[in-house]
């Protein structure tokens, strides 16, 4: 029984959150306790399925799941003429890494939301949307089908936009949500058009099949641009970052943490398309697209942090830092992409840079999620996000302060937290690619530290203030949610080598192994 259940993990990964999402309105009729129990159960089961699937992938290699087939492994039916006709989930080590991120974050966020949203109304819709967003993210990172990717992208965008605007907040949140919805829709239409171009030429939607047939004509290049730009926009890269401050600031804090994960699923899509769909060693222009990512990354890192420094709204400040940190990921993976065709450079520092970039994805999801949750905790008790009005909260909210410190030190790249581990990988490898970019990355890190010292000081330091006399520590479920993320931040900082060896290195190898991805579906060539 256990073994057959393990076989169906990829399906359960999306079926469980979907089922929970649609069951919530029914459970809501039975009362608050029933709904909370269901949310907790659904989140726990989803994470369990995700972690079990990831463990299986890291242990045994790529996992395939063919929906609707008599046997979940049969990618190519006997009578289809060598074409995979069904929707296939293909989870390789890179997908598994993203599944781990989404599983851990969604569990922490569900726990946190249970307490943070307990005094609000309309919880049926809120939690349904939350689980739909989780479904979208998990689907995006595990699907092996282009159109299916678009569908999950839409699910995550629509659920995300609805959640951003869920607490209307005098219309401000609606503006943030509308901006996100509009840009996501434009982006998704562009992705759909690109998929249409590819489908019209190659009669296939399966990523591996399209990759194996790709001819690198001018139409394919148009499709690549139509795919890459919206996905770069969705992950918040400068100069397409303008939606992030509004959207991240106005969303409920737990949702902001989940939107960070969702933006990283777009990042995953970008990498998957560049490396797997288009990454033919000889025919792909590695240098151009590598530098495209490198420049996007350097710009994002620098512009993000300089925009963050003057902010007075703590969540807006963190949103700009999210843009800045995304820059590191683009920079790291971009360096790997730029030197891909040069086997010596790739082995010498390209793969290290990519490992740094991918490690930074999981690290960032954890510490930035943690930071947004602490900002939400402060807002939950004080009702303000304005740094000029906050102060002296360290006396009343010690746990939140400790979690904030952990997150802030991690984002600034201070050892022994996880941000240091991935940034070090990026510095040393990018230095061999271009010393200027490495120095830029370090400067950004210093500015990040400066900015968070300011935030820490103005939120937690100083004598207790009269207007916050009634402020207490946040309820236990919120602390538990933050603790999950904080535990990962510390663990990945103390033993980074374990994570790099077990998860990141296989993910890098999966990303560069285009032939392996194709062969998993179509058989050996």
């Amino acid at each position: 029984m256990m073994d057959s259940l393990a076989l169906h993990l990829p399906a359960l990964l999306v079926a469980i959150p979907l089922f929970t999402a649609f069951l919530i309105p029914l459970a809501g009729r039975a009362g608050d306790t029933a709904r909370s129990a269901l949310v907790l159960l659904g989140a726990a089961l989803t994470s369990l399925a995700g972690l079990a699937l990831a463990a299986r992938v890291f242990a045994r290699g790529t996992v395939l799941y063919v929906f609707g087939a008599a046997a979940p492994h049969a990618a190519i039916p006997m009578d289809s003429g060598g074409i995979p006709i069904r929707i296939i989930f293909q989870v390789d080590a890179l997908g598994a890494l993203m599944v781990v991120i989404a599983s851990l974050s969604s569990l922490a966020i569900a726990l946190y939301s249970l307490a943070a949203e307990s005094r609000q109304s309309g919880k049926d819709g809120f939690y349904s949307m939350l689980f739909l967003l989780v479904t979208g993210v998990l689907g995006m990172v595990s699907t092996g089908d282009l159109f299916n990717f678009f569908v999950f992208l839409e699910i995550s965008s629509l659920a995300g936009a609805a959640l951003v605007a869920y607490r209307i907040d005098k219309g401000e949140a609606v503006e943030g949500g509308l901006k996100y919805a509009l840009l996501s829709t434009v982006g998704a239409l562009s992705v759909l058009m690109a998929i249409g171009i590819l489908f019209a030429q190659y009669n296939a939607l399966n990523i591996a099949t399209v990759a194996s047939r790709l001819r690198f004509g001018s139409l394919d290049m148009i499709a690549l641009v139509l795919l890459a730009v919206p996905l770069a926009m969705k992950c918040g890269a400068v100069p397409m970052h303008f939606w992030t401050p509004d959207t991240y600031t106005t969303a409920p804090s737990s949702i902001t943490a989940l939107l960070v994960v969702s933006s990283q699923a777009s990042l995953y899509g970008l990498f998957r398309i560049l490396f797997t769909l288009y990454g033919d060693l000889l025919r792909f222009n590695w240098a151009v697209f590598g530098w495209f990512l490198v420049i996007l990354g350097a710009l994002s890192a620098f512009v993000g942090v300089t925009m963050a420094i003057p902010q007075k709204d703590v969540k807006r400040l963190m949103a700009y830092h999210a843009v800045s940190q995304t820059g590191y990921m683009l920079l790291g993976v971009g360096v790997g992409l730029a030197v891909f065709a040069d086997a010596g450079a790739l082995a010498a520092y390209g793969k290290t840079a990519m490992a740094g970039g991918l490690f930074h994805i999981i690290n960032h999801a954890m510490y930035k999620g943690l930071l947004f949750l602490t900002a939400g905790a402060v807002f939950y008790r004080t009702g303000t996000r304005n740094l000029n009005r906050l102060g002296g909260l360290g006396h009343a909210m010690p746990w939140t302060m400790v979690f904030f410190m952990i997150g802030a030190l991690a984002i600034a790249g201070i050892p022994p937290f996880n941000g240091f581990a991935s940034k070090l990988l990026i510095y040393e490898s990018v230095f061999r690619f271009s010393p200027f970019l490495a120095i830029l990355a370090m400067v950004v890190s210093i500015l990040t530290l400066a900015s968070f010292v300011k935030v820490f000081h103005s939120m937690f330091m100083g004598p207790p203030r009269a207007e916050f006399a009634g402020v207490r520590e946040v309820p236990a479920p919120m602390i538990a949610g933050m603790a999950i993320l904080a535990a990962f931040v510390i663990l990945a900082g103390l033993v980074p080598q374990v994570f790099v060896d077990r998860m990141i290195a296989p993910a890098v190898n999966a990303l560069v192994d285009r032939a392996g991805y194709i062969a998993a579906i179509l058989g050996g060539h």
Partner: protein
Amino acid sequence: MNMTKIVRTTADLFYPFCLVFGLYVVLHGHLTPGGGFQGGAVMATGAALLLVSRRYEDITRSLRQNTMKLCEAVGLLMFITAGLAGLFAGGAFLYNGLAGAGGLFGEPVAFGANPGGLNTAGLIPLLNIAVGIEVLGGLTVILLYMLSGVKETEP
């Protein structure tokens, strides 16, 4: 607002036909153009007819938002359950274990060109019915929300 008696009577007459036609589109989804979404939308059009011909307060007595939300959730749950049933039938998620197995939708498909039998296709009609229920509920909720904002004005 209440429309004239002519409009109201026509809408009342049309309503059952809309529902029947919607049901037809849903149930024949595996044979003819259409399917769960389209059929559900046709049924919701019937609800839209009633909504525009009558006062919002009058209509919510028979078309309740709660019932429609229930339809939405139940339809979607049916869909996922049907998908999970594939696991118990020994295949993958959404495996069509019912096709050709006898029973209500399990008649084997005749070989060669034929107009198609209603009692075929196994899981697919069930999925269509689930989607039909969901879309009927979802679209009607949307219509009710939109029309709840309409203000009464004297002509």
